[in-house]
């Protein structure tokens, strides 16, 4: 990935295209699950969403293999796609915007407290 692609996000767009093509090839129920996975993982994204790419790739890989095995979506995810996404994002160490807000808040409070000279 060169600098230009990094700034414009061209490489991301290309990766998205590839994801979409792979998702198109999935059976019906699986495509719907893919949509839900994207929606659930979205809050874990950073500014560009670049950190989500390997996580989405892993999830799509699982969908592809499970579809080949002839498993139902329910066999793969139970009724908790949200829980799966949380585990997936947590396992990959994705930080959410909430983590950053929390840190920012903690930093600000600590600074103000120290200024009070406690």
């Amino acid at each position, binding site marked *: 990935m060169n600098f230009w692609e990094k700034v414009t996000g061209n490489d991301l767009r290309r990766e998205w295209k590839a994801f979409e093509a792979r998702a198109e090839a999935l059976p019906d129920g699986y495509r719907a699950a893919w949509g839900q996975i994207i929606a659930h993982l979205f809050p874990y994204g950073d500014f560009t969403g670049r950190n989500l790419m390997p996580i989405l790739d892993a999830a799509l*890989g699982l969908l*592809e293999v*499970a*579809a080949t095995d002839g498993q139902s979506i329910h066999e*793969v*995810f*139970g009724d908790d796609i949200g829980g*799966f996404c949380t*585990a997936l994002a947590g396992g990959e160490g994705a930080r959410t915007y909430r983590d950053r807000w929390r840190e920012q808040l903690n930093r600000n409070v600590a600074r103000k407290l120290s200024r009070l000279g406690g």
Partner: protein
Amino acid sequence: MEDLTEMLKGTLEGCVLEIIGSEETYGYAITRQLNELGFADVIEGTVYTILLRLEKNGLVQVTKRPSGVGPPRKFYTLNDAGRQELAKFWAKWQYVSSRIDRLKEGGR
């Protein structure tokens, strides 16, 4: 038995390590083995996130093999760190289960 999810949470990783330890295997086969063992509630998504964690923690070796149909599959074997982790798991399990048994028998 149903509703084991909460109880299994902490031990499932050890179970997966044990299964991988006995032979090279892949996600779906691990899930099936756990189901046949009587853990009917275990789903592939859960096993898959455990496998990713094991991979990230460097406990398994992953080989991608093309399958007859569909995309290539990831096969897992334990490395030395994985075998150590598995031994630790069984030691912890032995400790917990012996204490709980003792509690149940009313011993102190």
